[in-house]
């Protein structure tokens, strides 16, 4: 591939020749020579087509956002020697190169090797592909270049950071007939004392109330409150209108973080957890127990991107058809439209327990803005509107208004004070 410089040199030479003829000047003829000589030198050493083989290795293929990943790219030259070769390992912009380099220029002999080592730090979660490797063989005089693309792709999955909710109590109020950790307000297998009844043959010896026997000379058995498990469905609002702020600081990213923390917490207390994500497509994971379910949910959350213009009420439709009515619905949404109110009311009317965690878009926008005095008035009005909506929602659901700059555990702990007892 010839560059514009080669054409420029040829044109310059021609212009000087024409001028020399017009002026009949031998001095001007001489001026036509340097461009031709430079062209000739360039033509003697044209850049060959690069024939390279590249192998990329990653220190880890799964990492958490903010965790560095080391990448090594080994390149072997299977073709002729390259005077000047520019190599660029294409990295998605979400992976910031923090050490070493993914771009270099080198001279590479035939059968020569080149190694690029660099460290990337993912700024956000996602499923990223590194590659291809773009190679350009250059003429040092800039008169020509040959491009090649090496189709070497690597995949790195970046998980969102997890909210630490170990101390928060998140449990469904209604239980299902499986052993768990949620007090069921029914007699069963558990640890909390419920009452005493007459001993019946077949009762376990350890359940005999020896103090009552000593006092009344009759055998009594202790009864305990049964601990069961329930179902929780996390609904994440990732519609386009829920996106406010930057790529790393927006309600959807914070919502993903919260959803993962809640899923981990609820699964750890032996409940079933499901997930619905409202994005380009309506993505869902049916409720299930255990560690595998956490990974399933994580895999879905990794792919969450803002998109889609679904009406809020569509969620209610999906829930009513595919999830049982004794499920606790944890809705994670910035509540940017008032249609949330009617949808939540509809869910509550259908018998679902609804809890809402709302990453505040106002707090995010306020931090990003100039924070001028006139904006303060606007913020107060918007805050009043939001508070009105939240107070209306609190009539039918538990609502946690969350400024994402604080850990989610903090507003959840505050909210426990007004939560009705399970």
């Amino acid at each position: 591939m010839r560059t514009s410089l080669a054409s420029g040199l040829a044109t310059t030479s021609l212009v000087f020749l024409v001028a020399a003829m017009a002026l009949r000047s031998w001095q001007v003829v001489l001026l036509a020579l340097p461009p031709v000589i430079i062209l000739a030198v360039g033509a003697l050493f044209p850049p060959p087509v690069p024939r390279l083989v590249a192998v990329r290795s990653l220190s880890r293929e799964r990492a958490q956002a903010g965790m560095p990943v080391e990448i090594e790219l080994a390149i072997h030259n299977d073709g002729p020697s390259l005077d000047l070769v520019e190599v660029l390992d294409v990295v998605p912009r979400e992976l910031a190169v923090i050490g070493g380099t993914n771009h270099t220029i080198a001279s590479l002999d035939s059968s020569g090797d080149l190694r690029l080592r660099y460290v990337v730090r993912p700024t956000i979660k996602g499923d990223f592909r590194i590659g291809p490797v773009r190679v350009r063989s250059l003429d040092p005089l800039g008169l020509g270049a040959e491009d090649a693309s090496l189709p070497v792709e690597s995949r790195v999955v970046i998980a969102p950071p997890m909210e630490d909710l170990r101390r928060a109590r998140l449990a469904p109020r209604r239980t299902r007939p499986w052993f768990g950790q949620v007090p069921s307000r029914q007699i069963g297998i558990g640890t909390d004392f419920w009452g005493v009844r007459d001993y019946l043959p077949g009762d376990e010896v350890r359940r005999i109330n020896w103090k009552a026997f000593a006092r009344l000379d009759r055998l009594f058995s202790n009864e305990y409150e049964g601990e069961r498990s329930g179902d929780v469905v996390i609904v994440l609002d990732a519609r386009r209108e829920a996106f406010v702020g930057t790529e790393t600081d927006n309600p959807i990213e914070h919502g993903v973080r919260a959803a993962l923390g809640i899923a981990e917490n609820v699964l750890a207390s032996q409940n079933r957890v499901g997930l619905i994500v409202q994005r380009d497509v309506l993505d869902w994971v049916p409720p299930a127990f255990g560690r595998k379910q956490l990974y399933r949910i994580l895999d879905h959350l990794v792919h969450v991107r803002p998109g889609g213009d679904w009406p809020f009420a569509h969620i209610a439709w999906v829930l009513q058809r595919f999830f049982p009515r004794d499920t606790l619905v944890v809705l994670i949404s910035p509540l940017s439209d008032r249609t949330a109110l009617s949808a939540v009311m509809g869910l509550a009317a259908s018998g679902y327990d609804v809890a809402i965690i709302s990453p505040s878009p106002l707090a995010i926008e306020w931090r990003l803005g100039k924070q001028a005095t006139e904006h303060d008035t606007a913020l107060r009005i918007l805050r009043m509107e939001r508070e009105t909506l939240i107070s209306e929602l609190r009539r039918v659901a538990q609502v946690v208004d969350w400024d994402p700059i604080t850990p989610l555990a903090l507003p959840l702990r505050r909210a426990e004070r007004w939560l009705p007892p399970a």
Partner: protein
Amino acid sequence: MAPARMRSVAVRSAPLVTLTILAVWTALDVSAISEPRLFQAFIAFLAVGTIALALANVPGWGWAQPSGLVSLGLSYYGAHVIVLGIDVIAALSFLTLLFVHVEVRASSERFAPVYARPLRPAERKVVDAAMGRAAVRIGFASALGLLVPILAANLALTGVVPARTIPTAVLLAGALVVVVALLALLPIIERRAL
């Protein structure tokens, strides 16, 4: 890291140095013109050329470079052809420096982003070697571009080469055809050899 950053700054500023030399050189020559109208015309060309070439260093303004080079060349060669007369060595040196400026700018665009990144010593060594190789090639081509025409003129003027005979004209024409054919065919020959 500090030497690499300094190197990046040096590589970035190299085209500005060559541009400054060209502009000052042209300004000095143009200032020797005594006729005010011609002086004003050539100074205007020079100003346009210098501004355009300086702007070409700003990202997104690369398209200004060809017009800047043309304006600068016009002001220098126009002044010499019309008023001052052509000094062969100075004119060839100016032209070579103009090409060096273009080459240096192209190299600067290639190498400066690489030096701007945190390079390990081994990586920096590789890039240094590549830049050295490019600099040698540019120096070699520029030296040939300057010396060969001077030598040719010298040989013609001293009468070593009979400049006004039919065999010389035929030989010159033949050489020109060979050079053009080589220029056109070399890349194809090279590719077939691979």
